[in-house]
């Protein structure tokens, strides 16, 4: 009885796992076979890289990859800068009005940048940042979520270390840089993984703010490439899709444990 139920557990879990990665496997299958073989699910048909070649030549992918890379990098640098300073102020300094401002910041956890696309678009245009990578990244830099995360991390630092550094003659920024930042390394790593994978995948806002191949990130490029108007067939779309998810997917498979830990650390605050 017990063995039966444990067998059923394994069976159910594995069946669900197979269903869950089936879309990915099918796309991989389609990407590596000619369209007619892919559609007929002919298991003995020959493999080919032709789709990748056609897809690669169909759009400026290298530029898209580079744009996405630059985008996630500047967002991450910006986020580290803004959230470290604000997180430290909220965690370790006492001043009037702090609670009120903190509640304002928390509100932004719910009023998502995605919802404010209309006015943010006006703002970005007014700042002359339309169709720039900085314009795509800027609204995400002072992330309320990041401020909250850093605040929690800094609160966990023992006050004795702070005092010790002060007695050694360290200024406040020195203490932040030499004591708090090194001790919050795991949080920075977690935040980096969450931030990079979020913005690597972000679509709606970049779609609105970018207007040329020189600034377009991968997701927007992929959506344009796959648009039905372009009449690209399913094997080639699959190849393009596999190409654009490959870096993140490989990174995830290699550093799976860190990824999961990162999402957990970021989620359970």
């Amino acid at each position, binding site marked *: 009885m017990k063995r039966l139920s444990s067998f059923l557990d394994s069976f159910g879990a594995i069946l669900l796992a197979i269903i869950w990665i089936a879309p990915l496997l099918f796309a991989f299958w389609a990407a590596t076979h000619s369209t007619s073989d892919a559609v007929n699910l002919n298991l003995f048909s020959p493999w080919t890289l032709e789709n990748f070649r056609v897809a690669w030549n169909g759009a400026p992918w290298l530029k898209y990859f580079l744009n996405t890379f630059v985008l996630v990098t500047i967002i991450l640098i910006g986020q580290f*800068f*803004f959230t470290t*300073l604000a997180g430290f102020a909220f965690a370790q300094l006492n001043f009037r009005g702090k609670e009120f401002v903190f509640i304002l910041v928390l509100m*932004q956890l*719910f009023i998502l940048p995605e919802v404010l696309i209309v006015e943010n678009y006006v703002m970005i245009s007014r700042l002359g940042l339309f169709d720039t990578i900085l314009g795509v990244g800027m609204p995400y830099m002072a992330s309320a979520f990041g401020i909250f995360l850093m605040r929690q991390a800094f609160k966990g630092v023992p006050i004795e270390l702070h005092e010790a550094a002060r007695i050694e003659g360290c200024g406040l920024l020195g203490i932040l840089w030499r004591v708090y930042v090194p001790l919050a390394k795991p949080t920075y790593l977690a935040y980096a993984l969450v931030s990079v994978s979020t913005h690597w995948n972000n679509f709606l806002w970049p779609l609105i703010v970018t207007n040329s191949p020189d600034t377009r990130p991968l997701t927007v490029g992929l959506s344009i490439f*796959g648009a039905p108007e372009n009449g690209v067939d399913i094997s080639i779309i699959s190849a393009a899709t596999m190409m654009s998810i490959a870096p993140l997917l490989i990174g995830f498979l290699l550093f799976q444990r860190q990824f999961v830990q990162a999402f957990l650390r970021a989620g359970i605050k």
Partner: protein
Amino acid sequence: MSAHANLERRRQAIYGWLLLTPALALLSIFAFYPTIATLWTSLFSRGTRRNPVEFVGTGNYADLFADPTFWLVVKNNLLYAGVTIPVSIGIALAMALWANGKIRARSFVRTAYFTPTVLPMIAAANLWLFFYTPGLGVLDQIGSLFGLPSVNWLGQPETALWAIIIVTIWKEAGFFMIFYLAALQTIPEDLKEAADIEGASRWTYTRRIVLPLLMPTTLFIAVNALINSVKLIDHLFILTKGGPSDASKLLLYYIWEMAFAFFDAPQAAAMTILVIAVLAVVAAVKFSYLDKRTHYQ
């Protein structure tokens, strides 16, 4: 002493505000000001060449409430939330219970569950396109094995939204699983042993002990899922574009369309304000009620 303490207090205040300023400036530009500007815009008419912009009060809201498409979109979004939230939470829980149990191929199973989380929604939509395409798609191929007729899943109003819902569940469940997984690992082993000694069945143990202990996690996930039911619309751009005849259109997509395809910013602003109002209620409930036990200090 008081002079020194005073000095220290002022020093802290100055540093505090200095450190907050950069982040507050950005938040003001991209969150606080736009929120107010949206409210402001929603009170004015749309300027055209002939009619200049004028104050219309709640006119845009009245137009919105008189717009049958708006109500259809609200209904779609309610269904979208009403199905994706409980189903993805349920599947996430099942995944976590399995991935935490003693099963074969556990690391493969965990990886498979979590993988969709790291994919862009646009890529996910492309993957599912291969399933849904009529005639060529995998679903049709499987159906034809059983002699079922070809179905245009994305092209007919009855199924389009459901096709969208399935992609969202697929994308979310693995993400929510890891929170359950973490929570499950904090449940002490003795509880299971005690339940075994008492002769409780596995079902009783799960229902009476595990589920109540997971309640805070469930609430946390539910709030996230609720926010996602507003936010996750990228796949609409690939799969249905809100169609056919608005059958799969969701609020944020409609806002985007209103503003950037129909160039009706005031209507889009009015809709944005309504969405913000709903999100604000969620926030208020979360901070005042749900966080009574989870401490932020």
